[in-house]
């Protein structure tokens, strides 16, 4: 597991999730997850529906009890504590704002449960309203607010008690795309200014990559990989992660050359070899996969030198995205390779962009592919 870039390795984790398992009857929703979170981190649990991320979040909140395992927050074992006894607050996907209370009363609710004196409550509520810029809506009811405004109130309410840990359940799921992008940055800024440790759950990789300091990829109840967005993108540890984050091209084949400084894979689909400029651990002849990102694939109209890391193909599909296009190139073996090409590529070389059916040459540098053993 890779430590957060900002924290020293010797610091004790703020939140320690130790081998948490959750079973519902015969189904195992969470299958032995172990994870350490540092203070002030914004950690994203990323995965598709049913992977167990929401169940894990609910166990952190106290809404579900783990079948086995331990959760330790700031030195305190909270595994068996009720939700109302934990120093953790959650921002719900549906916001769950109390419809019969005003914005101010919603934010004050948690503080009232702690029997805070009224003056302090009012001051804190005002502070929170300013934090999310909702001061002038203090007396409105939730149904009088737009989606984005409701989200801000939900955030303010969940931060009011200065929780040690903030849980976010698909925080931007209910917003439309444009609003989402704007809100992502606003949200991260707010969280960082408050300095609260966060765990968010999302199925949207863009959201996780943009907002989190570290990401944990979950699938079928297990934590597959944990790392910074860059680490996960550049160095996926398995096919699932490579395919889940961003787009990729996967080739499979046996290792035919295994040297300390290079590895060659006989990739039948490529019709040639894939060279990687570093060694890997594993015997010769081992079946591996090579993951090559579309933006690392170079497309030429003129023939390139024959050899490894190159192939000839024809353009089967073009997906136009304005500033770039994704070319689906059909290779001799029938496999379709995706190549992401910025629009300037053709302008700078004074070439016409290839069109459907054109013959093109694809290639990539030896340091681009990532070797995956599972």
């Amino acid at each position, binding site marked *: 597991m890779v430590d957060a870039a900002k924290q020293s390795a010797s610091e004790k984790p703020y939140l320690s999730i130790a081998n948490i398992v959750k079973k519902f009857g015969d189904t195992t929703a969470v299958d032995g997850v172990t994870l350490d979170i540092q203070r002030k981190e914004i950690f994203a649990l990323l995965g598709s529906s049913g992977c167990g991320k929401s169940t894990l979040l*609910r166990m952190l909140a106290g*809404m*579900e*009890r783990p079948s086995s395992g331990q959760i330790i927050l700031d030195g305190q074992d909270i595994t068996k504590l*009720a*939700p109302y006894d934990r120093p953790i607050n959650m921002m719900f996907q549906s916001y769950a704002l109390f419809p019969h209370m005003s914005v101010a009363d919603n934010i004050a609710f948690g503080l009232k449960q702690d029997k805070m004196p009224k003056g302090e409550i009012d001051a804190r509520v005002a502070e929170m309203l300013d934090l999310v810029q909702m001061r002038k809506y203090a007396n409105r009811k939730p149904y009088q607010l737009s989606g984005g405004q409701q989200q801000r109130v939900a955030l303010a309410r969940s931060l009011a008690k200065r929780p040690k840990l903030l849980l976010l359940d698909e925080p931007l799921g209910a917003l439309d795309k444009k609003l989402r992008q704007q809100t992502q940055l606003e949200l991260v800024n707010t969280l960082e200014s408050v300095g609260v440790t966060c765990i968010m759950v999302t199925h949207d990789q863009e959201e996780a990559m943009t907002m989190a300091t570290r990401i944990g990829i979950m699938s079928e109840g297990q934590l597959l990989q944990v790392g910074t967005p860059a680490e996960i993108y550049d160095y996926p540890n398995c096919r699932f992660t490579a395919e889940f984050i961003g787009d990729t091209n996967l080739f499979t084949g046996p290792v035919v050359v295994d040297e300390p400084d290079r590895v060659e894979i006989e990739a039948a689909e490529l019709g040639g070899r894939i060279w990687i400029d570093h060694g890997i651990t594993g015997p010769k002849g081992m079946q591996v996969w090579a993951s090559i990102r579309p933006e690392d694939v170079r497309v030429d109209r003129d023939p390139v030198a024959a050899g490894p890391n190159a192939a000839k193909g024809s353009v089967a599909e073009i997906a136009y995205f304005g500033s770039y296009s994704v070319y689906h190139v059909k290779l001799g073996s029938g496999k379709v390779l995706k190549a992401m090409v910025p629009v300037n590529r053709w302008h700078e070389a004074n070439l016409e962009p290839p069109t459907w059916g054109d013959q093109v040459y694809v290639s990539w540098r030896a340091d681009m592919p990532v070797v995956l053993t599972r």
Partner: protein
Amino acid sequence: MNIQRLFKRLKPGRGAVISIPYFWLLLFFLVPFFIVLKISFAEQDLAIPPFTSLMNLEEGGLLHLTLNLGNFDFILSDDFYAKTYLSSLQTALFTTLMCLLLGYPIAYAIARTDPARRNVLLMLVMLPFWTSFLLRVYAWMGLLNENGLINSFLLGIGLIDEPLQLFHNDFSLYLVMVYAYLPFMILPLFSHLVKMDGRLLEAASDLGAGPIKAFFTITLPLSKNGIIAGSMMVFIPAVGEFVIPELVGGPDTLMIGKVLWNEFFDNNNWPMAAAVATVMVLLLIVPIAFLHRFETRQLEGKGNE
């Protein structure tokens, strides 16, 4: 899920909450059925209360248990009771069918009206429901009898020469049964129909189905739950109806609710009434159990959302 788990931890608190309505129903709803069963094995007696005791503790500590099966024997052997139960079921079935035939188009029409006018229409249809059942039955008494409004009207416009026998016969019974139970059919039907997605019909017509075909292949099957709910709400109570046969039924009208009432209030034969009630419950157990399972399945579907 979560509140339940916490309530599990507060076992005494949770138990107390559930137990209040639970024990009320056990005592005042369930236990009485067993008492009815017990009394049905007694004999009529000149006493207060007017039935014999089943158990007699004799000298020497011998407990005598007397089960009089005479009442049940009578019910099973005498033609009268079999005919009455059958006629009650028949009447209830007919009422349910007629309520369905009349109520479905009305519920459908309201469900398809725009929301603004829909409220007004719904209000209009439900207003009779909120008015007294008894008074609505009484209203028909004035309309149906020989000097009643219907006859006067028909005589007045010359359609008939003699007043029609519209009252105190099977016609008046069925008519008023349908009239009284109609709102009980319309409301469940409406609440199911209104939830149906109108776009399904748009899709059907886009695929080439005409309105009538679309109705029979899409709307009708999807409203199955509403039909079942409404039918149960009409059929089960209709079997044991008393007021309507009493007020507008004919002398030959055989309805089991009326028979029970007569046994109890007129003959003062409580054990017999209890026996009649026991057999009625046995007959109705099947539709009641069906309704219960149906409702449970409905709610489970909803609760899992």
